[in-house]
């Protein structure tokens, strides 16, 4: 099935100060409902790239296109229009919750802003149930939830406005292995159900192979290889990329 390309970035660069480039000339495109993994060691630029894609930081140069239209996140209006389509799940769920805000209020913030007509108790409960939590969670404060439950709420919030692209910044790295599995299954199910495209950042190649269709391998801010996820372990050419697929770990 041929899918339309709806997201593209060309020549994205990010420099902090003079001389140090965190990201150099990164380009890729993504089809509607497609999934892409960003693989690299710490400091390779994958989280910086994700922050640029999320519109949280402007690129030093380069351009992001959404449905062939250049994205301008410098202005409030452009940022708002972009975030209507693109949402993100952060690495550490605890940091994304205000300690004084109940889960219910947090969950409905996006809806309150983007689709106020849906700001109802029924929708709140439906969102919680979609991520496997009961309605009584809505009155709880963040510290009363486990890391896995918080991440489920964060995913529910990101999905609440029905974005077309979901950015995931190592969403399971702060969780234990049993909880990780549940969250990964949830993400896979929901992205399929909502037909959402996904950019998944990680340093665990096994997770990216499971969750994405292809992956970009980043080293020192540059894309050094683009691999189909399923056969990435066989097709990796560089020693840098091969280190993510040790023979025993490949299944």
């Amino acid at each position: 099935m041929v899918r339309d390309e709806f997201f593209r970035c060309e020549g994205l660069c990010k420099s902090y100060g003079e001389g140090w480039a965190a990201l150099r000339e990164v380009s890729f495109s993504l089809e509607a409902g497609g999934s892409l993994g960003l693989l690299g060691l710490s400091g390779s630029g994958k989280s910086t790239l994700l922050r640029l894609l999320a519109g949280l930081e402007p690129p030093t140069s380069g351009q992001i296109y959404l449905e062939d239209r250049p994205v301008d996140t410098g202005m409030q209006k452009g940022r708002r229009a972009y975030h209507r389509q693109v949402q993100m799940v952060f690495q550490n769920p605890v940091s994304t919750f205000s300690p004084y805000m109940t889960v219910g209020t947090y969950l409905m913030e996006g809806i309150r802003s983007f689709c106020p007509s849906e700001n109802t108790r029924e929708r709140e409960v439906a969102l919680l149930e979609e991520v496997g939590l009961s309605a009584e969670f809505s009155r709880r404060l963040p510290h009363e939830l486990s890391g896995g439950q918080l991440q489920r709420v964060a995913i529910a919030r990101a999905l609440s406005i029905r974005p077309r692209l979901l950015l995931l910044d190592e969403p399971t790295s702060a969780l234990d292995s049993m909880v990780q599995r549940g969250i990964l299954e949830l993400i896979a199910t929901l992205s399929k159900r909502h037909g959402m495209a996904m950019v998944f950042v990680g340093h665990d190649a096994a997770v990216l192979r499971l969750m994405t269709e292809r992956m970009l391998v980043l080293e020192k801010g540059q894309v050094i290889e683009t691999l189909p996820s399923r056969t990435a372990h066989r097709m990796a050419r560089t020693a840098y990329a091969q280190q993510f697929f040790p023979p025993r770990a490949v299944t």
Partner: protein
Amino acid sequence: MSIWLIRLWRDMPLRTLFFLNVLAAGFFLLAPFLAPNDPLEVHADLALAAPSTLYPLGNDALGRCFLSRLLAGGSGSLFFTFFIVLAVAFLGMGLGMTAALVGGRIEFLFMRFLDVALSVPTMALTLVMVAVFGNGLTTTALAIISVSWLVYARTSHAVVLGFRESGFVQQARMGGVGRGRILSHYVLPNVLPHIIILMTQDFGDKLLMLSTLSLLGLGAQPPTPEWGFMLSEGKAYLERAPLLLIAPGFLIFFHVVLFNLLGDRLQDVLDPKRGI
């Protein structure tokens, strides 16, 4: 905000402390209506007289009703302390938060100004400001305000800085939440507990500072009753009439301790890791 109120209301020790503070402060703020005699009326023949039915706590060196002066003095001390604490919190928080949210060159210059101003000892700076503004309770209060807001500005700035780029503010921005709501629902609820705790703990400090300046003869001027000034007057009669020294000293101590206890309890109750 409502979570705060629920927490505050459900905590029994805090409720008790709050009630005691309101009772103590309210009593003295209403003192002008409760005083049995005119606190300024001099009776030369009753100088340092012992307690009697007409003058329940006796008379001071000029024969003025000591109880009436204690009540009126408390009214002055507490009113000005409340005024000082509210003014410095409002001013300091407003400027500190604004600097943190605006950022850039304005923030840099503002913080360097704070660095310089805070490097001078507070009491020394206050004495300079009193010299500029002149003696008297109002001018002393203004002098204390002009110096004390610096600490609030630095605290608010530091707290806002911690939240400005926090995960939940970034998430809010991505969720299309406007600046006003981010400020009111994300930043303020996290900054205010720090400021409220600072205010209650600072109340004792400011009461002591006001009293110290009065004790040095820079605050309240005769014949205005004020606890610090009465302490200064009383020390000359320690042997003949110890109550003139002990009573205002005890009342200052009592209010300082009461507000510090309230501040400590608030700190525990407003800890975000506590449940509702």
